[in-house]
């Protein structure tokens, strides 16, 4: 031990390093290392030495994954170096049962249980975990043959006092909730491929989780719900994402009451109606309506109306990321004068995607610009720049663009223009794309005195064989009259 100055009176006394038969590291560290291994491998460390025989039974984390550890395709080398044949499916149930019976920690911190086969005594396992005070539970179950009836989860789970983090993947099966739900310690909940069945019980699941901070609903099925109601005063982050073909939101009303929400992500189809309280403290909002094209047949107007009413409650957003449909919805709102426009007064960062850079899309972006004098960063993603009209239309368009920006001096500091349409069919298309981008850049440089970062991302500018195009663009950009001295231009892809 080095001679330390005796002047201080710190209580952080050095711990002795026991050179016992556990080896070079202290026991708590070894336990922690074991908890990062799949439990199957942790159990096998009992062969290392007699002191290690029961070491694994004290780990706080169990990681039991049938798919990774029990179903093999072909052979695999295991720690002993021997080749192992494909295992029988039934042994996973035996394995989990043994692990839970040998494992003797009163507090189980985390259980990850990914199960592929149907006939597992899951009820018992979950009950055991809850009774040992599990804090993080990550359950993935196979889809039930009868999707509407799955009594798979014990009701004890939903009254756990210790559960902090719950991840549930039911493979598309129904989530049967008990009459009483009270997850008082739960902070994070993530439900994947879950089919909700009952309006009231689903509502209770969210509103009775009084400490819930983050809720993620991923690829869930709402077909049996008339209303999805999420009212939770502690909620800060909410994400509703669904890339399923039929998520059932189209016939479902979405009601959200979360006054402390700071981040909101919605990537799903347009719901039948939105009843959303205004989120006063929301910072980040991302809206991407899915499968909008399928809806257009049914009547664009009513759907755009639904979508645009949704935006009213999000008007406090500082960082907004919206899809082409949203741009459409905002435009819709604008052109119907009986509806007042939705102002985003606090907007700092706007990221938007438009199908093609035409008059109306530009108008919406500009209009957001006009309404948001504080906008600092603008990211525009253009579907395809190369689809463009006659040369006459082009001239007009550029003129219009210039006129719009002329009298607007914003405080934008960062602009990123991303263009899709990576396969340029002709030299004409390449030329047109470059021209449009340059025109936009020229207008922006002229109107935004604080612009410091300009990012152009397109395959066109980054291909090695077209590096001359990049040089030409760069040269042009630098030759434009600009307001800022310290402008950085970057090309990325």
């Amino acid at each position, binding site marked *: *031990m*080095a001679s*330390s*100055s005796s*002047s*201080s*009176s*710190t*209580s*952080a006394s*050095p*711990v002795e*390093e026991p050179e016992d*038969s*556990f*080896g*070079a*590291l*202290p026991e*708590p*560290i*070894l336990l*922690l*290392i*074991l*908890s*990062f*291994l799949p439990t*199957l*491998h942790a*159990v*096998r*460390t*009992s*062969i*290392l*030495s*007699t002191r*290690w*025989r029961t070491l694994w039974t004290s780990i706080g984390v169990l990681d039991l994954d049938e798919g990774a550890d029990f179903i093999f395709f072909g052979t695999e*080398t295991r*720690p*002993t*170096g021997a080749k*192992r044949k494909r*295992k029988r499916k039934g*042994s996973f149930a*035996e*394995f989990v049962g*043994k692990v839970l019976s040998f494992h003797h920690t009163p507090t189980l911190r985390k259980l990850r249980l990914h199960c592929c086969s149907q006939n597992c005594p899951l009820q018992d396992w979950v009950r055991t975990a809850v009774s040992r005070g599990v804090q993080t539970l990550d359950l993935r179950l196979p889809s039930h043959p009868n999707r509407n009836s799955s009594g798979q989860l014990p009701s004890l789970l939903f009254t756990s006092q210790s559960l902090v983090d719950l991840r549930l993947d039911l493979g598309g099966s129904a989530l049967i909730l008990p009459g009483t739900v009270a997850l008082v310690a739960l*902070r994070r909940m993530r439900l994947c491929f879950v089919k909700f069945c009952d309006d009231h019980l689903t509502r209770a699941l969210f509103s009775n989780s009084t400490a819930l901070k983050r809720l993620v609903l991923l690829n869930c099925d709402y077909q049996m719900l008339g209303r999805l109601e999420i009212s939770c005063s502690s909620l800060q982050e909410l994400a509703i994402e669904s890339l399923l073909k039929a998520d059932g939101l189209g016939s479902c009303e979405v009601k959200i009451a979360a006054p402390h929400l700071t981040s909101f992500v919605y990537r799903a189809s347009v719901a039948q109606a939105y009843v959303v309280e205004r989120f006063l403290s929301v910072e980040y909002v991302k809206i991407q309506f899915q499968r909008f094209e399928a809806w257009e047949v049914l009547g664009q107007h009513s759907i755009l109306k639904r979508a645009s009413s949704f935006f009213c409650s999000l008007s406090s957003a*500082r*960082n907004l990321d919206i899809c082409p449909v949203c741009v459409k919805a905002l435009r819709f709102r604008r052109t119907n004068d009986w509806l007042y426009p939705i102002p985003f007064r606090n907007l*700092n*960062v706007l990221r938007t995607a438009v199908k093609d850079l035409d008059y109306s899309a530009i108008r919406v972006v500009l209009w957001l610009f006009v309404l948001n004098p504080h906008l*600092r*960063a603008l990211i525009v993603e253009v579907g395809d720049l190369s689809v463009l009209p006659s040369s006459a239309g082009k001239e007009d368009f550029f003129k219009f663009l210039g006129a719009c920006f002329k009298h607007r001096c914003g405080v934008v500091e960062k602009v990123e223009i991303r263009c899709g349409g990576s396969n340029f069919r002709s030299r004409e298309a390449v030329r047109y794309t470059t021209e449009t981008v340059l025109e936009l850049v020229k207008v922006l440089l002229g109107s935004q005195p604080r612009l410091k970062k300009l990012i152009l991302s397109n395959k066109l500018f980054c291909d090695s064989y077209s590096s001359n195009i990049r040089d030409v663009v760069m040269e042009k950009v630098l030759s434009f009259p600009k307001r800022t001295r310290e402008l950085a231009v970057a090309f990325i892809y």
Partner: protein
Amino acid sequence: MSSGDSGPSSSKQLVQQPAAAGRSPNQPPLLGAGGRKVIVLKSGDEEEFEVDLLDAMQSRTLRRAIEDGCGDGPMPLPNLTGPVLAKVVELFRRHRGDPRWADELQETEKEGMFKDYAPQKPTAEVKGFDREFVSVDRDALFDLLRAANFLEAPGLLDVTCDAAADAVMNMTVEEVREYFGLVNDYTPEEEAALRKQHEWAFQ
């Protein structure tokens, strides 16, 4: 991706150069560049490191010491060597506001001490740093593991233990014994009996 770039810039002001030695223990905590409170950590080989008070709070051991009022003079950590402490201090700085461990910090919030500890998502930069941090040989990793155990710092523990687990994951039993410095004290009969008893795991 995030809107503000203010997070990392303020942290850059912190330099972990050996601090000026020879201050009296009763002096109030130093003020770092930017007006932040800093404390001085002293390794076993007498090297001193300045670390932001909030960053030091990532370690439960240091937090207890600070709350007991030991943060005024250089805090001796005799079982950590200079190079290890330098790495650890750098990790604390990079993990500032990391949401993976911010929850715990917020729960212990006292008098708004962590109010500028706004959680941020771990950036690719932080993840890259973590990878780089543990790409060291076995002995260096064990030094870091012992330091993590002593300091009780969740971030440091996670990063180092994960690396050690990764290292042994695909080793043979003999290799794992060598890695941890173990001697097989089972008799062949005992080993056979254990394998039989735990057949469900050794199949």
